């Protein structure tokens, strides 16, 4: 929903709130903003999640897993006291984790590279305050970050160190779920897979850890090249390796509308796993919030069907409905995300056929929108040349969503769209981190699980920005050779 207000309204509310503050400050009373916050809070407390969480059973280990899993990639961040980047806000993490526990969540999914490398540490602190057998812990072998020219011995050494460090950071001596992180990427996906897991013997090491009981369930998370997915299942079928679970990207848009050549339809991935009896863990059920923050007219369609259901609740019901789904991960940064998801899953109301059909139609609408498929996972970051890639893409998407993407200077809302795009751009992304600084080195491309061609998107967005700045949008521009 658009929250822009015009200049006059802005000055009016500014004046009003100043007056309000001045007027009541003596009495120590609330100001306008506080009242707004209270009203918002009321909407949530009205529906404090009270039902019983839905659980699914993992046939391999008989784990009784909550259908809602906590994704630990999107914690609220604060500046690192040592000045180097940011770290998760431990106080908030603890609070959210405790609340999740109290409402039945028992699956936590992290990785060594999440949250600028600090997610495992924060989880170790938050979870060690609870009995170890009261939750399932998932983390990953994120050795996609090992230098490309490393020898197999180096890959093994670095990977083993990464695994041991995970145990240390998480303050545990065993892991319930361990994943080969994000396979299917890389320019040559098969060579990259071999480099990471087979040539180096890292996978065999993981199998050994499972035999020792230090890893209870071994699986992988998949993005990208379907060839790799099929190959991994072939290994499973041939009995060379056994996958206790697999983590895939699944949501009602990617079910049948996954970007061709870049991602695989959820329906294929799910069916392949389900027919083999492999439990499925779902990631990106909400596409990094894109299925929550919908274009107005798509939201209207959902709301017409059920005015009280949030957009996110549709996406979570979709992800949780198939019976082969063990757990749906959600990176709940804020309490309201957690509350909304708890309401959806306590208990889960499985989608009816009619509702499934309805979401298919909605997916078709969303699919037509020219949004860039960025889920803000930040795998591309930090960009060596200083760009804030997700910041740029999200700002662009926000303007698309709000209808503030002009096509020509003659558009009726051109001036407004221009101001909102340009002013908002400078607010969201510092000038030195904007798209015009992309040199096209393509280092980020193979990091992106959505396989977005980031450099060409940067150039496209910058061309749009330049057209806005120079006032030449929609005019014939000479083609560059």
């Amino acid at each position, binding site marked *: 929903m658009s929250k822009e207000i015009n200049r006059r309204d802005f000055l009016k509310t500014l004046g009003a709130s100043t007056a309000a503050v001045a007027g009541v400050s003596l009495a120590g009373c609330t100001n306008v903003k506080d009242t707004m916050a209270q009203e918002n809070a009321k909407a949530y407390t009205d529906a404090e999640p009270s039902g019983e969480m839905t659980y699914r059973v993992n046939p391999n280990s008989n784990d009784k897993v909550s259908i809602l899993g906590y994704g630990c990639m999107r914690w609220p961040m604060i500046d690192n006291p040592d000045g180097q980047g940011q770290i998760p806000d431990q106080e908030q993490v603890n609070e959210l984790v405790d609340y999740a526990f109290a409402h039945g969540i028992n699956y936590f999914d992290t990785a060594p*590279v999440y949250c600028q490398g600090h997610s495992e540490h924060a989880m170790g602190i938050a979870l060690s305050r609870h009995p170890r057998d009261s939750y399932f812990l998932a983390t990953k072998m994120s050795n996609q970050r090992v230098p490309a020219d490393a020898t197999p011995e180096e890959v093994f050494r670095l990977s083993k160190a990464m695994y041991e460090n995970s145990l240390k950071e998480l303050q545990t001596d065993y892991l319930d779920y361990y994943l080969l992180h994000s396979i299917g990427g890389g320019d040559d996906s098969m060579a990259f897979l071999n480099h990471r897991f087979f040539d180096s013997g890292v996978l065999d090491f993981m199998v050994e850890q499972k035999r020792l009981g230090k890893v209870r369930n071994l699986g992988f998370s998949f993005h990208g090249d379907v060839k790799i997915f099929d190959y991994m299942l072939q290994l499973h079928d041939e009995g060379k390796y056994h996958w206790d679970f697999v983590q895939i990207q699944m949501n009602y848009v990617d079910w049948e509308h996954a970007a061709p050549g870049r991602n695989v339809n959820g329906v294929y991935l799910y069916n392949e796993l389900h027919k083999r009896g492999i439990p499925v863990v779902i990631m990106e059920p909400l596409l990094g919030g894109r299925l929550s923050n919908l274009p107005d007219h798509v939201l209207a369609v959902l709301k017409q069907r059920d005015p009280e259901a949030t957009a996110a609740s549709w996406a979570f019901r979709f992800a949780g409905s198939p019976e082969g789904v063990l757990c749906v991960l959600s990176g709940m940064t804020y309490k309201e995300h957690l509350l909304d998801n708890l309401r959806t899953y306590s208990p889960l109301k499985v989608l009816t056929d009619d509702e499934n059909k309805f979401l298919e139609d909605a997916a078709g609408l969303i699919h037509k929108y020219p949004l860039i498929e960025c889920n803000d996972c*930040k795998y591309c970051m*930090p960009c060596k040349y200083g760009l804030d890639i997700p910041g740029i893409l999200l700002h662009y998407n926000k303007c698309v969503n709000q209808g503030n993407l002009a096509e020509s200077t003659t558009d009726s809302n051109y001036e407004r769209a221009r101001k909102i795009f340009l002013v908002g751009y400078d607010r969201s992304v510092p000038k030195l981190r904007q798209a015009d600084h992309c040199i096209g080195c393509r280092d980020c491309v193979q990091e992106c699980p959505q396989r977005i061609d980031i450099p060409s998107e940067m150039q496209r967005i910058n061309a749009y920005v330049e057209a806005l700045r120079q006032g030449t949008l929609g005019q014939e521009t000479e083609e560059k050779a």
Partner: protein
Amino acid sequence: MLRKIRIALAAIFFILITGLFLDFTGTLQQYFGWMVKLQFLPAVLALNVVVIIALLALTLAFGRIYCSVICPMGVFQDVVAWISRLFKKKNPYSYSKPKSILRYAVLAVFVVAIVAGVGSFVALLAPYSSYGRIVTNLLQPVYIAGNNVLAGIAEGRGNYDFYAVEYWMRGLPTLIVAVCSLVVVVVLACVGGRTYCNTICPVGTVLGFFARFSWLKPYIDADKCKNCQKCSKNCKAAAINIQKGMAPTIDYSRCVTCGNCLEQCSFGALTYCHPAKGTTPKNSGDGQPADSGRRAFLTATAVATGAAVAKAQEMKVDGGLAIIEDKKIPERQTKLTPPGSLSARNLAKHCTACQLCIAECPNGVLRPSGNLMTLMQPEMSYERGYCRPECTRCSEVCPTGAIKLITKEDKSSTQIGHAVWVKKNCVPLTDGKECGNCERHCPTHAIQMVPSDPNDEKSIKIPVVNIEKCIGCGTCENLCPARPFSAIYVEGHEVHKMI
């Protein structure tokens, strides 16, 4: 009544001219840009005959009301004096003898400096420019800070009308000069009202010369005057001489026609009229041209900005932002001057260093020179931004003709310099990464990428510059990923040319 009208007009001019220096959005400029074009010295330097004649005619008709209404430095002194009088005794002034020799000597030196093209000296004394420097250097930071607070609030409320802008210290010498001028002007204004205008200001001297012959002027009827000296004690120009046994006189070369005296006289002896018989005292004297040194030596401009450089993390993790090292200014053999200035010489000759173009430049390109010959006049550098194709703001605001009005089309084909490639910094060669950011953004397609190894078509590509097509806008230099020194930078041209 006359005084009230004068104060009202002065307030309008003063506030709007000050606003022109503060307003980074260029909105005021559209409506009130003409106010700075009325300034006397800029008009002289721009050879704006219409304005010069109009101002002289105004002075010949009404006296030096220019100094009381149009000149922001004059009004500023009135404001300072008014504030200081709130804390002081009521009648602070008294008649003083004219310092004619000093006035005309300063004027003479000033004229010589203009002719000789010693811009820095001209800039130091010019009243409008002095005021501009004070506002730009001392008030604009406060204004921008206020704006940024407002922008922060607006952002929180989803409003897009206010946006944050960056303020940076553009030149230390100019800041020091601004502070010194402010101190001198404030002290002089507190102690002696219009002392600056009547001893140092060359514009005041010129207009004072004409004001002696003005048609309308304050006139004391000697028959009605009781020698109470009330008017004299309230004359901020110290121009009214009332002594027992002598006919009262007013030095019209110093009177700025403020009208303060008119309301003081209890006996109806003072009126603003055309006196029946002129009783103007005569004094004149031409000064001798003074000599001025021509050695150019550089004064330190930029305060070194220490950029913290951190080593890359050992193993990449998700998220976070790479640290961006600040760009450093390359040493340019020839300084860059903005499109429209025609040549370095034209700029130096016409510019009074009022800082208006610098205050207005939205791209962080213009900053005051630290060179003694062109001290405080604008020059360009691209480490913060580049000269954007859609912007001709400096040429629009310049009142002196130092930067002549230029269209976007002409600007896009005016060559002010040319790009020079610096092999040792170029990212394809240092990092082994495909780049081409300079080529991609060059507005005139003056850059193309060629294989670095002439025998290998597939070797990594490096930029080459066609200096005939390059206009020197600095896009390549600013967007070059090499830091702190860009791998491509712009060398200035002394004389601009159309390509």
